[in-house]
Protein backbone atom coordinates (compact mmCIF):
# COMPACT_ATOMS: atom_id res chain seq x y z
CA UNK A 1 0.00 0.00 0.00
CA UNK A 2 1.29 3.43 -0.90
CA UNK A 3 1.05 6.25 1.58
CA UNK A 4 -0.93 9.23 0.40
CA UNK A 5 -1.10 12.71 1.89
CA UNK A 6 -3.34 15.38 0.40
CA UNK A 7 -4.24 13.07 -2.43
CA UNK A 8 -0.73 12.71 -3.78
CA UNK A 9 1.39 9.60 -3.21
CA UNK A 10 4.79 10.13 -1.71
CA UNK A 11 7.78 8.57 -3.42
CA UNK A 12 9.62 6.24 -1.10
CA UNK A 13 13.16 5.06 -1.30
CA UNK A 14 13.83 1.40 -0.88
CA UNK A 15 15.82 2.01 2.26
CA UNK A 16 15.29 3.77 5.56
CA UNK A 17 17.49 6.16 7.47
CA UNK A 18 18.96 4.93 10.73
CA UNK A 19 16.61 6.70 13.14
CA UNK A 20 13.56 6.17 10.94
CA UNK A 21 12.86 2.64 12.12
CA UNK A 22 12.16 3.89 15.63
CA UNK A 23 9.23 5.84 14.18
CA UNK A 24 7.45 2.67 13.11
CA UNK A 25 5.96 2.00 16.55
CA UNK A 26 4.51 5.52 17.07
CA UNK A 27 3.23 5.48 13.49
CA UNK A 28 1.40 2.22 14.19
CA UNK A 29 -0.01 3.67 17.40
CA UNK A 30 -1.19 6.79 15.60
CA UNK A 31 -2.86 4.66 12.96
CA UNK A 32 -4.56 2.76 15.76
CA UNK A 33 -5.90 6.04 17.17
CA UNK A 34 -3.47 6.79 20.00
CA UNK A 35 -2.93 10.56 19.96
CA UNK A 36 -0.21 10.34 22.63
CA UNK A 37 2.10 8.83 20.02
CA UNK A 38 2.56 12.33 18.59
CA UNK A 39 4.85 13.12 21.51
CA UNK A 40 7.04 10.16 20.69
CA UNK A 41 7.22 11.33 17.08
CA UNK A 42 8.32 14.74 18.32
CA UNK A 43 11.03 13.26 20.55
CA UNK A 44 12.46 11.27 17.65
CA UNK A 45 12.02 13.66 14.76
CA UNK A 46 11.08 17.11 16.08
CA UNK A 47 14.53 18.63 15.80
CA UNK A 48 15.11 17.12 12.37
CA UNK A 49 11.79 18.38 11.09
CA UNK A 50 12.50 21.87 12.35
CA UNK A 51 15.97 21.79 10.81
CA UNK A 52 14.85 20.76 7.33
CA UNK A 53 12.01 23.30 7.47
CA UNK A 54 14.46 26.04 8.47
CA UNK A 55 17.02 25.10 5.82
CA UNK A 56 14.36 25.16 3.13
CA UNK A 57 12.30 28.18 4.13
CA UNK A 58 15.18 30.31 5.36
CA UNK A 59 13.47 31.80 8.38
CA UNK A 60 12.36 30.68 11.79
CA UNK A 61 8.74 31.81 11.66
CA UNK A 62 8.07 29.85 8.47
CA UNK A 63 9.91 26.82 9.85
CA UNK A 64 7.65 26.87 12.90
CA UNK A 65 4.60 26.94 10.66
CA UNK A 66 5.95 24.06 8.58
CA UNK A 67 6.55 21.86 11.62
CA UNK A 68 3.03 22.49 12.88
CA UNK A 69 1.63 21.74 9.46
CA UNK A 70 3.54 18.46 9.36
CA UNK A 71 1.99 17.44 12.67
CA UNK A 72 -1.47 18.36 11.43
CA UNK A 73 -0.92 16.24 8.31
CA UNK A 74 0.51 13.43 10.38
CA UNK A 75 -2.55 13.36 12.63
CA UNK A 76 -5.21 13.95 10.01
CA UNK A 77 -3.66 11.43 7.62
CA UNK A 78 -3.09 8.81 10.30
CA UNK A 79 -5.23 6.22 8.51
CA UNK A 80 -2.56 6.03 5.80
CA UNK A 81 0.36 5.59 8.21
CA UNK A 82 0.05 1.80 8.26
CA UNK A 83 1.26 1.72 4.68
CA UNK A 84 4.37 3.82 5.27
CA UNK A 85 7.41 1.62 4.79
CA UNK A 86 10.09 4.24 5.55
CA UNK A 87 8.69 6.53 8.25
CA UNK A 88 11.80 8.68 8.61
CA UNK A 89 12.13 9.47 4.92
CA UNK A 90 8.39 9.87 4.67
CA UNK A 91 8.27 12.43 7.47
CA UNK A 92 11.17 14.46 6.07
CA UNK A 93 9.55 14.36 2.62
CA UNK A 94 6.31 15.72 4.05
CA UNK A 95 8.26 18.50 5.79
CA UNK A 96 10.18 19.31 2.61
CA UNK A 97 6.97 19.59 0.59
CA UNK A 98 5.22 21.63 3.25
CA UNK A 99 8.20 24.00 3.30
CA UNK A 100 8.08 24.41 -0.47
CA UNK A 101 4.32 25.05 -0.40
CA UNK A 102 4.71 27.61 2.34
CA UNK A 103 7.56 29.36 0.56
CA UNK A 104 5.43 29.62 -2.58
CA UNK A 105 2.51 31.04 -0.66
CA UNK A 106 4.80 33.55 1.02
CA UNK A 107 6.31 34.52 -2.33
CA UNK A 108 2.85 35.26 -3.68
CA UNK A 109 1.88 37.24 -0.63
CA UNK A 110 4.95 39.38 -0.14
CA UNK A 111 8.70 39.12 0.02
CA UNK A 112 9.53 39.17 3.69
CA UNK A 113 12.92 40.20 5.02
CA UNK A 114 14.91 37.34 6.46
CA UNK A 115 15.86 37.68 10.07
CA UNK A 116 18.89 36.60 11.98
CA UNK A 117 18.41 32.90 11.28
CA UNK A 118 20.50 30.27 13.02
CA UNK A 119 20.91 27.46 10.48
CA UNK A 120 23.53 25.65 12.53
CA UNK A 121 24.34 25.18 16.17
CA UNK A 122 27.70 24.66 17.81
CA UNK A 123 27.99 21.79 20.25
CA UNK A 124 27.99 22.88 23.87
CA UNK A 125 27.91 26.46 25.07
CA UNK A 126 31.31 27.62 23.86
CA UNK A 127 30.91 31.32 22.90
CA UNK A 128 33.60 31.02 20.25
CA UNK A 129 31.71 28.16 18.57
CA UNK A 130 28.49 30.11 18.87
CA UNK A 131 30.10 33.01 17.02
CA UNK A 132 31.34 30.60 14.35
CA UNK A 133 27.85 29.16 14.03
CA UNK A 134 26.41 32.63 13.52
CA UNK A 135 29.04 33.36 10.88
CA UNK A 136 28.25 30.08 9.12
CA UNK A 137 24.52 30.75 9.32
CA UNK A 138 25.05 34.11 7.69
CA UNK A 139 26.94 32.44 4.86
CA UNK A 140 24.29 29.72 4.48
CA UNK A 141 21.70 32.44 4.08
CA UNK A 142 23.52 33.43 0.88
CA UNK A 143 22.86 30.04 -0.73
CA UNK A 144 19.80 29.28 -2.84
CA UNK A 145 17.28 27.30 -0.78
CA UNK A 146 17.70 23.96 -2.66
CA UNK A 147 21.49 24.12 -2.26
CA UNK A 148 21.29 25.18 1.39
CA UNK A 149 18.90 22.31 2.06
CA UNK A 150 21.05 19.76 0.24
CA UNK A 151 24.31 20.91 1.85
CA UNK A 152 22.75 20.92 5.31
CA UNK A 153 21.09 17.55 4.90
CA UNK A 154 24.40 16.12 3.78
CA UNK A 155 26.89 17.78 6.10
CA UNK A 156 24.83 18.58 9.19
CA UNK A 157 22.22 15.82 9.24
CA UNK A 158 24.53 13.21 7.68
CA UNK A 159 22.21 11.94 4.96
CA UNK A 160 23.44 10.14 1.88
CA UNK A 161 22.85 11.52 -1.59
CA UNK A 162 20.23 8.84 -2.18
CA UNK A 163 18.36 9.85 0.95
CA UNK A 164 18.54 13.53 0.01
CA UNK A 165 17.22 12.64 -3.42
CA UNK A 166 14.34 10.67 -1.90
CA UNK A 167 13.46 13.48 0.51
CA UNK A 168 13.62 16.29 -2.01
CA UNK A 169 12.14 14.33 -4.91
CA UNK A 170 15.00 14.85 -7.34
CA UNK A 171 17.39 12.39 -9.04
CA UNK A 172 20.40 11.35 -6.98
CA UNK A 173 22.70 13.09 -9.44
CA UNK A 174 20.83 16.37 -8.92
CA UNK A 175 21.07 16.01 -5.15
CA UNK A 176 24.83 15.41 -5.38
CA UNK A 177 25.20 18.32 -7.76
CA UNK A 178 23.34 20.66 -5.42
CA UNK A 179 25.62 19.59 -2.58
CA UNK A 180 28.77 20.15 -4.62
CA UNK A 181 27.69 23.54 -5.98
CA UNK A 182 26.33 24.64 -2.62
CA UNK A 183 29.50 23.72 -0.82
CA UNK A 184 31.68 25.53 -3.37
CA UNK A 185 29.52 28.62 -3.04
CA UNK A 186 29.55 28.39 0.74
CA UNK A 187 33.37 28.30 0.75
CA UNK A 188 33.44 31.43 -1.41
CA UNK A 189 31.01 33.18 0.90
CA UNK A 190 33.13 32.24 3.89
CA UNK A 191 36.22 33.79 2.28
CA UNK A 192 34.69 37.23 2.72
CA UNK A 193 36.03 39.24 5.63
CA UNK A 194 33.92 38.95 8.75
Amino acid at each position, binding site marked *: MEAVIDGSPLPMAGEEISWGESLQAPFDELAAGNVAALEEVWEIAGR*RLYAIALWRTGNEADARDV*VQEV*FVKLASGRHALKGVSSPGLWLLTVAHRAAIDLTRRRAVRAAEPLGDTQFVAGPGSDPHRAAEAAWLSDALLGLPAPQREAVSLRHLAGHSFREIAAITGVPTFTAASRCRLGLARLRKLLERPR
Partner: protein
Amino acid sequence: MNDTPLRGFEPPEPPPGLREAALQAGRRGFAAVPAVRAPDVWTRLYRSRPARLAWAASVILLGALHLALPRRPQAGPPSTASAPRLDPEVGAIARLPRISEQAASAYSGERS
Protein backbone atom coordinates in the same frame (compact mmCIF):
# COMPACT_ATOMS: atom_id res chain seq x y z
CA MET B 1 32.55 15.09 3.87
CA ASN B 2 34.67 15.85 6.95
CA ASP B 3 36.61 18.67 5.31
CA THR B 4 33.63 20.94 5.00
CA PRO B 5 33.21 24.22 6.85
CA LEU B 6 30.22 22.61 8.58
CA ARG B 7 32.33 19.99 10.34
CA GLY B 8 31.65 19.91 14.07
CA PHE B 9 28.36 21.77 13.83
CA GLU B 10 24.87 20.42 14.38
CA PRO B 11 21.35 21.08 13.17
CA PRO B 12 19.70 23.90 15.13
CA GLU B 13 17.59 23.26 18.19
CA PRO B 14 13.86 23.95 17.81
CA PRO B 15 12.85 27.26 19.39
CA PRO B 16 11.14 27.13 22.79
CA GLY B 17 7.44 26.54 22.56
CA LEU B 18 7.52 24.82 19.20
CA ARG B 19 7.11 21.40 20.77
CA GLU B 20 3.85 22.37 22.45
CA ALA B 21 2.63 24.24 19.38
CA ALA B 22 3.33 21.26 17.12
CA LEU B 23 1.68 18.78 19.48
CA GLN B 24 -1.31 21.07 19.84
CA ALA B 25 -1.61 21.32 16.06
CA GLY B 26 -1.36 17.55 15.82
CA ARG B 27 -4.14 17.09 18.37
CA ARG B 28 -6.32 19.48 16.40
CA GLY B 29 -5.66 17.47 13.26
CA PHE B 30 -6.43 14.31 15.17
CA ALA B 31 -9.77 15.64 16.32
CA ALA B 32 -10.69 16.93 12.87
CA VAL B 33 -10.68 13.47 11.33
CA PRO B 34 -13.10 10.80 12.57
CA ALA B 35 -11.60 7.80 14.32
CA VAL B 36 -12.95 5.39 11.75
CA ARG B 37 -12.49 6.38 8.16
CA ALA B 38 -15.61 6.11 6.02
CA PRO B 39 -15.30 3.15 3.64
CA ASP B 40 -14.95 3.89 -0.05
CA VAL B 41 -17.76 3.40 -2.55
CA TRP B 42 -16.76 -0.16 -3.54
CA THR B 43 -16.56 -1.30 0.06
CA ARG B 44 -19.96 0.22 0.79
CA LEU B 45 -21.40 -1.44 -2.30
CA TYR B 46 -19.89 -4.77 -1.30
CA ARG B 47 -21.28 -4.50 2.22
CA SER B 48 -24.71 -3.23 1.16
CA ARG B 49 -27.46 -5.78 1.81
CA PRO B 50 -29.89 -4.37 -0.81
CA ALA B 51 -27.13 -4.41 -3.44
CA ARG B 52 -26.32 -8.04 -2.65
CA LEU B 53 -30.01 -8.98 -2.80
CA ALA B 54 -30.40 -7.20 -6.13
CA TRP B 55 -27.37 -9.03 -7.49
CA ALA B 56 -28.68 -12.43 -6.31
CA ALA B 57 -32.15 -11.70 -7.72
CA SER B 58 -30.73 -10.73 -11.10
CA VAL B 59 -28.68 -13.95 -11.24
CA ILE B 60 -31.72 -16.06 -10.38
CA LEU B 61 -33.86 -14.21 -12.93
CA LEU B 62 -31.28 -14.68 -15.68
CA GLY B 63 -31.02 -18.40 -14.86
CA ALA B 64 -34.79 -18.83 -14.88
CA LEU B 65 -35.15 -17.00 -18.17
CA HIS B 66 -32.41 -19.13 -19.66
CA LEU B 67 -34.29 -22.29 -18.75
CA ALA B 68 -37.77 -21.03 -19.51
CA LEU B 69 -37.37 -19.37 -22.88
CA PRO B 70 -37.73 -21.77 -25.89
CA ARG B 71 -34.59 -22.40 -27.84
CA ARG B 72 -34.34 -21.32 -31.47
CA PRO B 73 -34.08 -24.14 -34.02
CA GLN B 74 -30.55 -25.05 -35.03
CA ALA B 75 -29.44 -23.10 -38.01
CA GLY B 76 -28.26 -25.20 -40.98
CA PRO B 77 -25.15 -24.64 -43.04
CA PRO B 78 -25.20 -21.41 -45.00
CA SER B 79 -26.80 -21.84 -48.40
CA THR B 80 -24.67 -21.06 -51.41
CA ALA B 81 -27.68 -20.72 -53.68
CA SER B 82 -28.36 -17.22 -52.64
CA ALA B 83 -24.74 -16.13 -52.80
CA PRO B 84 -24.24 -13.54 -55.50
CA ARG B 85 -22.17 -14.63 -58.45
CA LEU B 86 -18.67 -13.24 -58.52
CA ASP B 87 -18.01 -10.72 -61.20
CA PRO B 88 -15.43 -12.30 -63.60
CA GLU B 89 -13.34 -9.12 -63.62
CA VAL B 90 -13.20 -9.06 -59.84
CA GLY B 91 -12.41 -12.77 -59.89
CA ALA B 92 -9.48 -12.18 -62.19
CA ILE B 93 -8.11 -9.51 -59.87
CA ALA B 94 -8.64 -11.64 -56.82
CA ARG B 95 -6.93 -14.67 -58.31
CA LEU B 96 -3.35 -14.79 -57.16
CA PRO B 97 -0.85 -14.98 -59.97
CA ARG B 98 1.20 -18.13 -59.96
CA ILE B 99 4.93 -18.01 -60.36
CA SER B 100 4.76 -20.77 -62.93
CA GLU B 101 1.61 -22.36 -64.28
CA GLN B 102 3.70 -25.42 -65.28
CA ALA B 103 5.08 -25.85 -61.81
CA ALA B 104 1.57 -25.75 -60.45
CA SER B 105 0.35 -28.39 -62.87
CA ALA B 106 3.44 -30.53 -62.25
CA TYR B 107 2.76 -30.32 -58.55
CA SER B 108 -0.87 -31.29 -58.99
CA GLY B 109 0.25 -34.13 -61.30
CA GLU B 110 2.61 -35.47 -58.66
CA ARG B 111 -0.14 -35.46 -56.13
CA SER B 112 -2.49 -37.33 -58.40
